[in-house]
């Protein structure tokens, strides 16, 4: 899967994701998922040989590779470049699916029915699905670990990040979904505080 003797700094996106050039969409996604888990655990299997900064750099590089290769268009461009036929380096595309605008109340209503003001794990999840976003994609875009996003959607209080982070995560996630960050964070936290979440 890798060109022998090339270190990660010189490896191309396929080598970074440890997949073949013929990898299917599903294979790309699985490899990405596994690699993100490996390089975000911070445990000894990676830190014996890499410094924690290097682990972070690798993790970012994995994101970058995934963004280019999961999108057939940028992948094609990238392949041309690898073959020396492209004329410019490929810029990792921003996720085309993450919303870069605020959704209208109309759209929110369409997604959630009449439930729109109850910001909860369930409604956030519904919004995400309405926008056809995968958790992986949101994780790449927001740089929030998938497990934290999942905890938010499942309102899994036990594995929630510390309160200081949670608020930030909620705001970022809301923004990625085109929602009002302030409103979502406040309503969500009010809801789970009621469910037993300790603020500090």
């Amino acid at each position: 899967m890798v060109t022998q003797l090339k270190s990660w700094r010189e490896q191309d996106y396929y080598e970074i994701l440890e997949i073949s050039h013929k990898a299917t969409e599903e294979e790309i996604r699985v490899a990405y998922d596994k690699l993100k888990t490996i390089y975000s655990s911070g445990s000894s299997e990676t830190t014996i040989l890499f410094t924690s900064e290097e682990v972070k750099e690798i993790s970012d590089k994995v994101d970058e590779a995934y963004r280019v290769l999961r999108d057939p268009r940028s992948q094609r461009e990238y392949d041309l470049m690898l073959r020396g036929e492209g004329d410019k380096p490929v810029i990792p595309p921003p996720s085309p699916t993450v919303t870069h605008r605020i959704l209208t109340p109309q759209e929110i209503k369409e997604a959630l029915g009449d439930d729109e003001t109850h910001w909860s794990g369930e409604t956030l999840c519904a919004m995400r699905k309405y926008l056809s976003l995968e958790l992986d994609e949101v994780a790449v875009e927001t740089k929030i670990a998938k497990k934290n996003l999942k905890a938010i959607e499942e309102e899994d209080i036990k594995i929630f990040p510390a309160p200081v982070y949670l608020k930030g995560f909620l705001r970022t996630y809301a923004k990625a979904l085109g929602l009002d960050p302030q409103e979502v964070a406040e309503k969500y936290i009010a809801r789970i505080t009621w469910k037993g979440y300790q603020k500090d």
Partner: protein
Amino acid sequence: MDKEKDKKGKQKREKHIWAIAGGKGGIGKSFVTANLGIALCERGKRVIVVDADLGAANLHTLLGVPQPPLSLDDFIRRGMRNIKAALTETGIPNLQLIAGVHDILTLSNPKQGLKQKIMRHISSLDADHIIVDLGTGMSPHVFDFFLISENGIFLVTPEPTSLENAYRFIRGVFFRRWMNMTTNNNVKKIIETAMDGNNPEGIKTPSDLLAQVGKVDKETATIFKKGMSTFRPRLIINQARNRKEAELGFAVRSVCRKYFGIELSFLGHILYDHNVYLSVQRGRAFFSDYPSSDVAECIRDIAVRLSDGKGLEWSLS
């Protein structure tokens, strides 16, 4: 003449020689050698297991057989002409054993010529799979046996010390491989320096070393680079207590790819099971006592991958 050649060609089955190593002691090398041997037999293969642990040989006990009268020792020191004479039946159909040398510390670092002779004789044995238990350590002789077999398997358990040893082992064996490929003394000296993980030159990875070698001898550097494709060590995780620990194999493989630029094949994991300990204590082969255990299933899966020559992709099954 031609006819005979044809006949031979037909009869000739593919032969695989696997060397089992691991930097750390007591992680299950002998256990895996013995039981992987049995698992391959179950698949209809003819298997020979060889105890090449020149320090503490005990493979026979893991197969549940008494100390055989003849061993590798008779070949090494007592003038046995052919290693074949040391073959011992194990009571398991199609599985034969060459027992090891006991407590001969002077032998634990044999001369290069002797090593080659031992390996040559082992390679000439008639079987589908020959599995060689190399014993513990990171000495040059262990590296050499690992390399001569061309198909080295190293074992890792899910503990930081074992992982650390594994990475050191891979590095060591790799550098040793290059050492054996060159006669240029200047190059040898550089490799010698690099063997020390904390060398002042800061040579850590094969590509670092290659760069240094390239400075004194371009041609050798090219030869080193070219000989890479045949080097593909295999990895087994032993004593995994859960799925997460089993998946460590993917992490080790990834780190080796990214750090060393070395392609590694992950063959799978073997679960931890207290019954392994019990069967060893009783002096029985694990497979005979627990043929339908999860551990036995794990080892069977590995046997299949060995036979097929295919490692895992990104999922455990």
